[in-house]
């Protein structure tokens, strides 16, 4: 089972995070983490049973990074996400029903079944979309931040990307432009040690992605991505900077994907020990233990949250199964806005 460090502290010594958010918000964060976990386990199951088409990239083990990053965001703040984007999507407020409907290729899905796992977006809650192109979302987030500034809003754009993506030219160009134009954007690198099979040791000449921030005269902060409070506090600082007109930040959340890269992964590039070590640092277990230790949540309440997440996901799968299949006659729909072609 998951081991966690018990933190016993006097309430007066509680970290900012636990004081900044009220109990409802903290419980909701835990709820979302469970939702993400169960969502992905459910998706995996459906995939294994042949109910889902294509491939998928699971973020199990990375839930603290997604939820911690989005906890303090507004609906009008944007995020851009990645191929490994289910967590970001739920964290930003998406409805798992409509996500599952998308996986099942249904009209009820977020993308009417046209996008699937790699393109899920929930524009109403500010999620501009997952992206099948590694690094594809980086300049898009900068552009969203530029639009925010042009529209004189005090929103921010949060850009999720991986360690592997930070080797793309798009990373360099995007961070440089965000920096010279001082745009309200947060670059959140979820460093899970691998870009597919290639470790950061083999793909970068520096130890941390954050070590690249000085090249853009940008703060680069490294946090434990499996500890929601570390992630959230760093993001809150960066968000405040951004809303205040002080420009972009890079935050690197050190985390790990417990599952393989995707369904084609034969796990030839990492050890069982490494995986086990990270399993022991489960972000949900850590957060739940803290909530209990700090008297914010009782064990049975946590249990209820977990069960509710399971029930919600099970219902979401059923909802999705019952969805409407798109008609081949509708193939050309939405290629253009006015149907012109």
């Amino acid at each position, binding site marked *: 089972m998951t081991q966690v460090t018990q933190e016993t502290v006097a309430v007066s010594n509680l970290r900012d995070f636990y004081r900044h958010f009220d109990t409802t918000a903290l419980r909701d964060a835990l709820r979302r983490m469970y939702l993400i976990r169960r969502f992905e386990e459910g998706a995996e199951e459906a995939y294994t049973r042949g109910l889902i088409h294509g491939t998928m990239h699971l973020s199990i083990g990375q839930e603290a990074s997604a939820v911690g990053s989005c906890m303090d965001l507004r609906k009008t703040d*944007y995020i*851009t996400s990645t191929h490994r984007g289910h967590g970001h999507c739920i964290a930003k407020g998406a409805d798992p029903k409509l996500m599952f409907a998308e996986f099942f290729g249904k009209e009820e*899905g*977020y*993308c*009417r*079944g*046209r*996008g699937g796992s790699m*393109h899920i*977006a929930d*524009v109403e809650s500010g999620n*501009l*979309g997952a*992206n*099948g*192109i590694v690094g*594809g979302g*980086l*300049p*898009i*987030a*900068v*552009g*969203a*931040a*530029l*639009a*925010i500034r*042009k*529209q004189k809003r005090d929103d921010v*754009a949060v850009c999720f990307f991986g360690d592997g993506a930070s080797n793309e*030219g*798009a990373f*360099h*160009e*995007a961070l*440089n*432009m965000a920096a*010279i134009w001082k745009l309200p954007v947060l670059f959140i690198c979820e460093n899970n040690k691998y870009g597919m099979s290639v470790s950061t040791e083999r793909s970068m000449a520096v130890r941390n992605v954050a070590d690249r921030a000085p090249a853009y005269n940008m703060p680069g902060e490294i946090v434990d991505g499996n500890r929601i409070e570390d992630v959230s506090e760093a993001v809150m600082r960066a968000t405040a900077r951004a809303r205040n007109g002080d420009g972009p930040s890079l935050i690197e959340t050190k985390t790990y994907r417990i599952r393989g890269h995707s369904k084609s992964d034969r796990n030839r590039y990492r050890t069982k020990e490494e995986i086990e070590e990270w399993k022991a640092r489960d972000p949900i277990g850590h957060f739940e233990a803290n909530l209990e230790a700090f008297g914010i949540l009782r064990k049975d309440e946590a249990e209820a949250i977990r069960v509710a997440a399971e029930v919600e996901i099970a219902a979401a799968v059923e909802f999705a199964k019952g969805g409407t299949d798109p008609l081949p006659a509708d193939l050309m*729909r*939405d*290629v*253009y*806005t*006015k149907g*012109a*072609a």
Partner: protein
Amino acid sequence: MSARELSYAEAVREALAQAMEADERVFLMGEDIGVYGGAFQVTGDLVHRFGEDRVMDTPIAELGAAGVAVGAALAGSKPVFEFQFSDFATLAMEQIVNQAAKIRFMLGGKVSVPLVMRFPAGSGTGAAAQHSQSLDAWFAHVPGLKVVQPATPHDAKGLLLSAIDDPDPVMVFEHKLLYKMKGEVPEEAYRVPIGKALVRREGRHVTIVATAIMVHRALEAAEILSGEGIDVEVIDLRTLRPLDTQTIIESVKKTTRLACVYEGVKTLGIGAEISAMIAESEAFDYLDAPILRLGGAEAPIPYNPVLEKAAVPQTDGIIASVRRLVTGRI
């Protein structure tokens, strides 16, 4: 009262200015479009009229800057992006083709990407193989994009204003050699519709469908051929995607002969599509001769000016080929 004349570049500039005046969401991005005025002096003084926030110089970073434009469009702004030379779009195809063109579709119609990109294209300036390409056919191959290629100052303004109105990404190909060409341009902010070709000259014996600078060479050729009794109809394609198939089909049914003249490489250039479209259409039965294509040579554009000219259709070649098409066998 004689109509007002502007150069093609001035016409583009006027469209940009009128669009920016009318809609504060519109802004310009590109390399050296500010104080430098653009490599071809298209944006000219706009930075002084609208300020650096609306006429933004980008770093030399085509992929990223194109992506910034896509993101800004998604988030409610209306960017008009200038590539300094269309050749540099090779660096930004990812954002144009995987993102801008597909986002609306991939997201089930939940968003649109009101983005305009301008591409100074074509050869004739002695800038050699990496600054002289005509890659419009690539873009016309991509569903989700619209592609226009105005041949006159009038259309340069009117099509650009339509492009800026359009909720979807529109790619505007401008031929560098046309920038200094003068023509009548009304002052008001008129639109030329996307998706409509224009018969620039009526004729009975043969149809030439031409794009960009080739429209002018085709018209010159038609003038000379008319002296020989060959009556040429010249269609200015204007939009490469979506194709105005009807106008071309009608013309070919009338003239029974078709020549496509374009600067892009002949193989898989826009003329390939026009030819194939006719060969599978109802006009096929009317054809009295093979369909001729005059496109760019199967070679990079050379630096030497004589070779450079030889690499793309010139008026003489058009005349000779069309004459053969009309008077030859069949």
